[in-house]
């Protein structure tokens, strides 16, 4: 086999072309990894939002809280089951109202986006032990006070501690604090008093959804069967984590798919770049290759050698791309939750699997781009060594 140092040094000698090609590959790896990191970020924000011992109850036929309504009678029915952890806050069942409002971005761009408002009873925060106030205080029950999730605090006009915004004319809501929920999608919501929120949209007697804390995660199937069996209730019962997972699939699939399309388009350019570089390398080294063939190195050895060189080139590109993509972990990114049509803020999340798949993608690009030049190299006749 042709010694590997031959390829490594050949790449180092042609620093400028090697670097330029590696940067092209790095760019593709960056986009490829970033798309997956975004998808992973969405998964983390949405898929991890639910608990396994909590169910979310919607009206049958609704896929999301936004399009569901439940009345007080149904809420009472939900409580009347032994699987409900009645000692939990709210007696194990809380009904919540959600609505989406349009708000102006605070960055002065004049842009608008959707914000999800959640009205909850007095025990709503206690029902979610992962939620905690990070600045200011909790809203007082029965008032127009709200708290804003840390991820979107300050992103919109009026939706920041100490400021007010309107859902209904002349009924301002006052932001009294910020909360966080460990990075889940709840952290991109505004929480307020149930009655205040539903009164503002004129739906005083109903809630959007109910959350039910069960005695254990294993009690789910029995509870669901009991609640869904009664056709008069017309309910849909899901595990809370499954509900969010379903929501995340649409959003992360969209983002990762979009990123993948861009990465694939870029990769064609990068492969052409790699092919040009490797073709140049072969053309400049015709006599060297001829000499190696004359000395007895087989066509396969030459082919392998140049494929290896293409792989090294792509690995340099992958290393640069992956190095820079780490910086994205510092960036948060607003995107649409396609289930609620409101904005959620997610972070790019790097995982070892993403790093590995991006590296494999880079190597695949190198192999595809390097194949034709390597075949060309392997076809060089040993007689070329004799040409002066």
């Amino acid at each position, binding site marked *: *086999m*042709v*010694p590997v*140092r*031959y390829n490594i*040094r*050949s790449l*180092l*000698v042609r620093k400028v072309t090697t670097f330029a090609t590696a940067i092209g590959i790095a760019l593709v790896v960056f986009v490829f990894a970033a798309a997956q990191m975004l998808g992973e970020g969405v998964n983390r924000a949405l898929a991890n939002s639910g608990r396994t011992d909590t169910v979310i109850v919607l009206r049958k036929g609704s896929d999301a809280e936004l399009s569901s309504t439940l009345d007080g009678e149904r809420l009472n029915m939900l409580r009347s089951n032994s699987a409900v952890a009645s000692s939990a806050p709210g007696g194990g069942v809380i009904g919540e109202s959600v609505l989406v409002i349009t708000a102006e971005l605070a960055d002065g761009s004049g842009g608008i986006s959707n914000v999800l408002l959640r009205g909850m009873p007095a025990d709503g925060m206690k029902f979610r032990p992962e939620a905690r106030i990070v600045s200011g205080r909790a809203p007082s029950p029965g008032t127009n006070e709200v708290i804003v999730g840390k991820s979107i605090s300050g992103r919109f006009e009026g939706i920041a501690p100490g400021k007010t915004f309107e859902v209904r004319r002349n009924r301002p809501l006052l932001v009294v604090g910020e909360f966080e929920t460990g990075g889940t999608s709840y952290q991109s919501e505004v929480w307020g008093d149930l009655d205040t929120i539903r009164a503002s949209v004129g739906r005083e007697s109903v809630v959007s959804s109910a959350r039910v804390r069960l005695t254990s995660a294993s009690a789910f199937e029995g509870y669901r069967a009991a609640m869904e069996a009664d056709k008069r209730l017309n309910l849909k019962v899901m595990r809370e984590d499954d509900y969010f997972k379903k929501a995340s699939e649409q959003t992360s699939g969209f983002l990762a798919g979009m990123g993948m399309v861009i990465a694939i388009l870029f990769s064609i350019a990068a492969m052409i770049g790699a092919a040009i570089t490797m073709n140049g390398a072969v053309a400049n080294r015709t*006599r*060297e290759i*001829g*000499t*190696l*063939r*004359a*000395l*007895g*190195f*087989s*066509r396969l050895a030459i082919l392998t050698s140049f494929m290896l060189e293409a792989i090294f080139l792509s690995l340099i590109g992958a290393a640069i791309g992956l190095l820079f993509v780490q910086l994205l972990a510092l960036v948060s990114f607003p995107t649409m939750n396609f289930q609620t049509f409101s904005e959620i803020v997610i972070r790019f999340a790097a995982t070892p699997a993403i790093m590995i798949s991006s590296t494999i993608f880079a190597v695949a690009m190198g192999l595809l781009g390097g194949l034709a030049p390597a075949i060309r190299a392997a076809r060089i*006749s*040993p*007689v070329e*060594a*004799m040409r*002066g």
Partner: protein
Amino acid sequence: MATESSNGASIVTLKDVTKTFYRGKEPIHVLAGLDLDVPSGSFEALMGPSGSGKSTLLNLIAGLDRPTSGEVTVAGANLSRMSDGQLAKWRSQTIGFVFQSFNLIPVLTAAQNVELPLLLTDLGGADRKSRVATALRVVGLEDRMDHYPRQLSGGQEQRVAIARAIVNDPKIIVADEPTGDLDRKSADDVLTLMDKLNKELGKTIFMVTHDPAAAEKASVQRKLDKGALQ
């Protein structure tokens, strides 16, 4: 380095060899019915004008190319019937190459260049290192082992190339204009070295040259003109 003696038996035999190239559809007959016997242990120089077929003949003897017709037998092997892969393996075991432009790999050191043919053998790292050191000592460049070709003079580069040609102890060394790119002093050094390889180590050398001084070093001088030996 094994010593071989000239026993008069042919190491190279060409019988009725022709070689035809095509320029478009027009055939160019470079060699026409050529016969040649090179005795083992001899030092032969092949001269002739440009286009006479010298390089073509050398390529056939070295197993770099196959004849259009006829038989080429070198060191007991009939090259006319070998595949590309078989020829490559055969070259690595039988032939040492010395090129006009030295053909060292610029990104490898002198020692790494000399080691290249040994990478095709089963020798371990220590054995290869020892053989490389011996070959470089034979050409008087053991102190230039770690130099890259660009750090060597033309004469030194050619001596490294000769070390590479002898490191796998080939049966025959083929040299294509070995002094063509050298000044007179360096050319003489290289020729003296080749003479030493022939006389002291008994290597068969077949050299193509334009240089009459080089040809004089050889024990046999042949002339090729229009594809036929004179």
